[in-house]
């Protein structure tokens, strides 16, 4: 059947008049829908899904302005205005949550973001294809492990009583250090684990950008006497810049989204002080303690900040580098 239709196309590529017609806008909207009802039927599940699980919850966010209780539901609960938001601004605990979120995010922008770029550039300079392939294969693997497994591995390496690293410290006569339970190390450990898991995988996008750079540019640079460093400086780096800018913009827009799974698995009561972020707090307070309104306010606050940052960063980038998301 399939081959048959393809055959028809090649023999007679012109004038499928019946199909062309509805593209030129001769039919009324109702007529179009009636003629192409299958297309709209196929969209019904999509509508149902997005309305139920995206739009209804978005509207449900009004409980951030209400004193929600389960018996009264979304609609009947009492309005309280900005009470929850005011509580957020004034309570030092929330200031701490915002601070933790921003700090971990900043760590990610400073350390996790450039790591794959540097790695991609290094890989790009490797001439031995076999070596390049094997390094890539190994470095992509951690991406496919879940956060629970990554935590398991971190635990086996870093825990104070039985971790391999501390065993080695003991062997060398050094004092042991509890990487997983000490507040001073928490952010570094979480961010490092993120780099371990995603660094290799994130290079893919940059390697693709690198392979898109025209070889003639390198030839020209060589003719002009550019060594490898100069080639990197004047060909490779400018070639990567669009990809870097776009991804950085996205990261800035998601500054408040540090990654629930990544942080929550490493958290323990000892590290709440430095590691509790808005998302994990919303989970603990909202789901486990049923404080629905205040945690929704946190969520809304987060989205608004993210949106404002995204628009702002996009504007700055548009005027300075010419690259933009929208």
């Amino acid at each position, binding site marked *: 059947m399939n081959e*048959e*239709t*393809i055959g*028809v*196309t090649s023999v007679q590529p012109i004038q*499928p008049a019946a199909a*062309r017609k509805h593209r030129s806008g001769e039919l009324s909207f109702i007529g179009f829908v009636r003629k*192409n009802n*299958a*297309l709209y039927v*196929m969209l019904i*599940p*999509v509508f149902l*899904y*997005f309305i*139920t*699980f*995206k739009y*209804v*919850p978005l509207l*449900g*966010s009004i*409980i*951030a302005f209400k004193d929600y209780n389960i018996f009264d539901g*979304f609609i009947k609960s009492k309005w309280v205005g900005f009470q929850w938001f005011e509580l957020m601004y004034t309570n030092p605990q929330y200031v701490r949550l915002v601070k933790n979120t921003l700090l971990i995010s900043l760590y990610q922008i400073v350390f996790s973001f450039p790591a794959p770029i540097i790695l991609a550039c*290094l*890989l790009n*300079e*490797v001439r031995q294809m076999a070596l390049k392939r094997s*390094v890539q294969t190994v470095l992509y*693997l951690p991406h*496919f*492990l*879940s*956060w*629970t*497994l990554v*935590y*398991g*591995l*971190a*635990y*086996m*390496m870093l825990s104070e009583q*039985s971790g391999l690293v501390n065993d080695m410290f*003991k062997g060398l006569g050094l004092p042991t250090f509890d990487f997983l339970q000490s507040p001073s190390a928490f952010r570094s450990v979480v961010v490092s684990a993120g780099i*371990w898991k995603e660094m290799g995988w994130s290079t*893919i996008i940059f390697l*693709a*950008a690198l392979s*898109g750079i025209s070889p003639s540019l390198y030839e020209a640079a060589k003719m002009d006497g550019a*060594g490898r460093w100069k080639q990197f400086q004047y060909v490779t780096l400018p070639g990567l810049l669009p990809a870097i800018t776009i991804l950085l913009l996205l990261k800035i827009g998601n500054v408040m989204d540090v990654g629930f*799974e990544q942080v929550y*698995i490493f958290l323990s009561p000892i590290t709440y002080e430095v590691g509790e972020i808005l998302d994990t707090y*919303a*989970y603990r307070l*909202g*789901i486990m303690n049923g404080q629905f309104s205040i945690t929704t306010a*946190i*969520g809304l606050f987060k989205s608004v900040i993210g949106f404002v940052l995204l628009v702002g960063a996009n504007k700055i980038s548009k005027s300075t580098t010419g690259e933009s998301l929208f």
Partner: protein
Amino acid sequence: MKIKRSMGEKSFDAFNITLLVIMSLLALLPLLHVVAGSFSSNNALIQSRVSFWPVEPTLQQFKYVAANDSFWRAGWMTVKVVVIATTLNMVLTIVGSYPLSKSYLRGRRGIMLFIIFTLVFQAPLIPTYLVVKELHLINSMWALIVPGAISAFNMILCITFFRNLPEELFDAAKVDGMNDYRIVWQIVVPLSKPIMVTLLLFYAVGHWNSYFAPLLYINDRHLQTLQMYIYFLIAAGSSNDIAAAVAGDTGGKLLPKALEMATIVLATTPIVILYPFLQKHFVKGATLGSVKE
């Protein structure tokens, strides 16, 4: 002609290769350590004699994990969720993307905006949770499937791919009397292998690895997934379940650590086995959506 390489270049190459090899080792060593530990005896583990090679090899801990009902129950639950959820994901994404790939579809712009809007403005956690609760999905396998039935991002990927299929093909099919439903299954899907494989893998790995959704929606221990099982075993430190089973059998001779290692290894095995087959598709998929210029 032989390309001359300067001293500086040579030393850079040497440095570069060394650095990359070190990074690869750093990526592998934690895995090797756990594999080594899982095959080592309790004594060797207690005395911290295990680094990257099994010491006094034994399969004891694997036997206990393998004899543990809740481990297999969690594994089976995970397989069920991955299979059902991924199938639903694929069907809905393909069927929904096809109409939206038609530039002549009336109302297309509006519908696209309707979808993209949800990427920019994401609903907070609690209202989403309350909707799932209102639908009585809490503590049911469906809570892990239905709320994630479509990913807007994957759908946009799919639409972009479909748009590049030649419209003449569809015209011809229509002349032959095919309706849109048959076109999707008999023309679009077979012609879109790269995006199909990519979506399949993205969705499946996402479901396999997730622990947030189960944590959020499942309280019943009988319904826990593998990731939750590992979470409770290691992160939450409540390995009672497995430890009790062991104590009953051996008088508590096995270390929790040995069992945790064996569990990690068993839970990672499917991924490591599938990984070589998946890798090339994944690489294709990851660039499919990103480089559009």
